[in-house]
């Protein structure tokens, strides 16, 4: 590992020119403590008008991520460079104010929600403006990126050279690579390609003193412990990811995609089990239940069988014979499991149409209900059928419409709970359903989050997953990596002090 103090600068970055204009949010009567005012003044001096949002309106859009959890930040710093970021972080340290790293804010667990312990409002530090693709090394199939670079942009840049970046979260057109590293994001092709962590070769992590640590270089074996892996999925609590080296793969020469409809959830789940234990693992296996299919068909017209209780999207990638054999096996297994329809994509257009349905879920939901609560749980694949039945039962009990969209090959469920926040009392039922989904997964030897992270939303469940000793070890490692306690406090591990400052209630909700 090597250590450098905020090494790079962006030549065209707007230098922090502290303009003399009036700063209404700094004036007396704005309710700031002396310490808060001092920090904001210092940060303003570092990043200027353009790099600091501290007025009511400027703060409002940074109250939450894509979850409901929201809290009021002290302000929002938007640095252009690593040096500026380091200076802002040092200012936080000097004034003893915590900071919440943030990228695109598409997180679903409240990780970027600016909560602090004991009523202290943190400063949000956004990495969104540091969005360059620093280096695309085609020969060695890797890329050095800044944290604010959007996932899909790396994908497009790589595609030009016949390469691809495998992690493909459904949010990839908005979510950033820094966010993906920090949440250890998943996606549709995890089954064989693995989660984000498998594609991170090195991480640049800035500590609360603004010092950037290279974890741990790109050599495969080290004479020392390997901190690369543990820094992935830190959810902003271990420091700020200011850069990463990511692995690229050659684009597959051949792709085979299949859509199969089943008369019951159980049959679809049994099919998943058969596929996973067949002699060729598919690269993606996605399941959507009848509700999800019905909604998507009305919206995207992807040609899904609307009479099926569940559909599976199955994809094989790689060399042509393996792909063809995989699809043949999948078709035979589908028939054996009672499939009512099987469609094999004959060309790229048909493949795109099949995926269009899966990708239209969020859009279709937006048309249907004003609000949704998206869960994320995992069970061993052999328990998938039981878990799907349980979700249906929970929806019936709470009188809620729940759609099942599942990374089935991984046993990773994403039930979407639809509701309208203006309906009185609905939130209690939504949260009750969410809670029951999580505890059911735990009962089935599963876990509380597969890819969205712990953030605030799931952190109190950790005591049900781990023993006191397990958590003590986790806490000790966190403190060893980030001893100041200023980086995104209050997240990931169950709180030992104080109460939660975040509101679990969407703004404008009827409570």
């Amino acid at each position: 590992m090597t250590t450098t103090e905020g090494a790079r600068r962006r030549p065209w970055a707007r230098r922090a020119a502290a303009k003399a204009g009036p700063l209404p949010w700094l004036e007396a009567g704005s309710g700031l403590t002396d310490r808060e005012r001092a920090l904001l003044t210092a940060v303003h001096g570092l990043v200027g008008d353009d790099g600091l949002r501290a007025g009511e309106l400027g703060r409002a859009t940074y109250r939450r991520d894509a979850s409901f959890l929201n809290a009021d930040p002290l302000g929002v710093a938007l640095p252009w460079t690593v040096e500026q970021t380091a200076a802002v972080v040092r200012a936080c340290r000097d004034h003893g104010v915590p900071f919440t790293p943030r990228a695109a804010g598409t997180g679903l667990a409240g990780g970027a929600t600016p909560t602090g312990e004991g009523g202290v409002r943190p400063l949000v530090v956004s990495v969104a403006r540091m969005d360059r693709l620093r280096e695309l090394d085609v020969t060695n199939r890797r890329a050095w990126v800044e944290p604010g670079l959007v996932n899909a942009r790396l994908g497009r840049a790589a595609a030009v050279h016949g390469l691809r970046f495998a992690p493909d979260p459904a949010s990839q057109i908005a979510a950033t690579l820094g966010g993906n590293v920090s949440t250890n994001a998943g996606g549709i092709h995890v089954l064989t390609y693995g989660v984000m962590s498998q594609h991170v070769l090195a991480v640049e992590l800035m500590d609360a003193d603004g010092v950037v640590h290279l974890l741990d270089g790109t050599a495969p074996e080290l004479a020392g412990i390997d901190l690369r892996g543990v820094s992935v999925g830190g959810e902003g609590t271990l420091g700020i990811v200011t850069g990463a080296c990511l692995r690229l793969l050659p684009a597959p020469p051949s792709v085979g995609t299949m859509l199969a409809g089943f008369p019951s959830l159980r049959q679809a789940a049994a099919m998943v089990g058969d596929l996973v234990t067949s002699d060729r693992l598919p690269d993606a296996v996605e399941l959507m239940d009848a509700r999800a299919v019905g909604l998507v068909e009305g919206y995207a017209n992807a040609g899904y069988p609307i009479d099926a209780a569940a559909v599976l999207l199955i994809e094989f990638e790689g060399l042509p014979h393996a792909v063809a054999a995989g699809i043949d096996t999948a078709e035979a297994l589908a028939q054996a499991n009672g499939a009512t329809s099987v469609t094999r994509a004959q060309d790229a257009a048909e493949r795109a149409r099949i995926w269009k349905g899966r990708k239209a879920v969020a859009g279709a939901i937006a048309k249907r209900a004003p609000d949704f609560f998206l869960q994320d749980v995992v069970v061993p694949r052999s328990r998938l059928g039981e878990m799907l039945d349980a979700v249906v039962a929970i929806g019936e009990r709470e009188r809620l419409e729940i759609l099942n969209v599942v990374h089935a090959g991984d046993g990773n469920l994403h039930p979407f709970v639809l509701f309208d926040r203006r309906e009185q009392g609905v939130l209690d039922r939504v949260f009750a359903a969410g809670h029951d989904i999580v505890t059911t997964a735990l009962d089935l030897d599963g876990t509380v989050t597969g890819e969205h992270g712990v953030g605030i939303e799931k952190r109190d469940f950790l005591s049900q997953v781990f023993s006191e000793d397990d958590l003590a070890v986790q806490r000790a490692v966190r403190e060893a990596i980030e001893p100041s306690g200023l980086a995104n406090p209050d997240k990931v591990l169950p709180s030992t002090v104080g109460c939660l400052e975040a509101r679990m209630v969407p703004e404008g909700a009827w409570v």
Partner: protein
Amino acid sequence: MTATTGELTTAEQVREAIMDARRDVTPVEIRSGGSVLDRLPTGDHPVLSVAGMTGVVAHAAEDLTVTVRAGTPLTELSQVLADAGQECPIEPTGGAGSTVGGRIATALAGPRQLGAGRVRDWLLRIRFVTGAGQIATAGGVTVKDVTGYDLCRLMTGSWGTLGVITEVTLKLRPLARHRAWYATDRPRHDLDALLYRPSASITTRERTHVLLEGHPDDAAEQAALAALVPADPPTLPVTARASVDPARLVGLVEECETLGLVWAAQDGVGVCHLDGDGDRLDAARTAAEKRGGALLVLDPHLQRPAFGSRGSSPIDERVRRTLDPDAVLAPWRWTR
């Protein structure tokens, strides 16, 4: 190697052994039975061995996972998995007798790392006892899990310094239908554009060796395309291994060739296996470190430190001190 701490079979016994070591202020060397760890110089320290902790705890074939105790020989595990048509592609890096725990603790690149990914990518859950004597579990038995910090990855490659691994859950995959080694005289960079994700590519002085796994017809077509001929697997030197950024491997290899070392390079991975005398390996170590890499000596007779000098970073130090506060777990690891 003097006394051993006796046959340990449970995590609780490991914990007691660690607490004894703390009380007596006597650091211990960790061994698991026959892994790479056993090829490092031990000095005169008591040995804490987990070789007695053996056996497959649960093989969930339909979930593609297996839970296994740390002292289980990899060959035994492979057999159990192969009987079900499955594998975990983290075979030993050379030499028989490797154990699962030792494999995770050392995490050296295996022959198939190019295609199968790193050792740490196959680890789902780990149970270990920290140097402070806490019995801990991290990760879970599902193939996707972001619940809490990823201590699985931290313990992988910790070389017995942060904690003693007692049990792991590994991810599995189906065994490939076809698997064969090929060779060619063409340089490896010519092959990149022709071969789609080969399982291994190992260059020796004479030629490039390629491992193809998957569908037999694909392998035949790939071999024809790149003019590969069937060949025996390459024999890898075992005295030492250098590790550098894969982009700098060619330069390192050239220097090793000039030094008169016998070498075999894992293309795309960044590891170069070496045979030669101590002085030449010293020079190779300098060559690797000059390129930001490291060299590991795996022959205790050579009278050379196993690891070279890597300046330990403040984070490394803090992590080590927090998990092993009295420095009882091989505190000498990186300096001998």
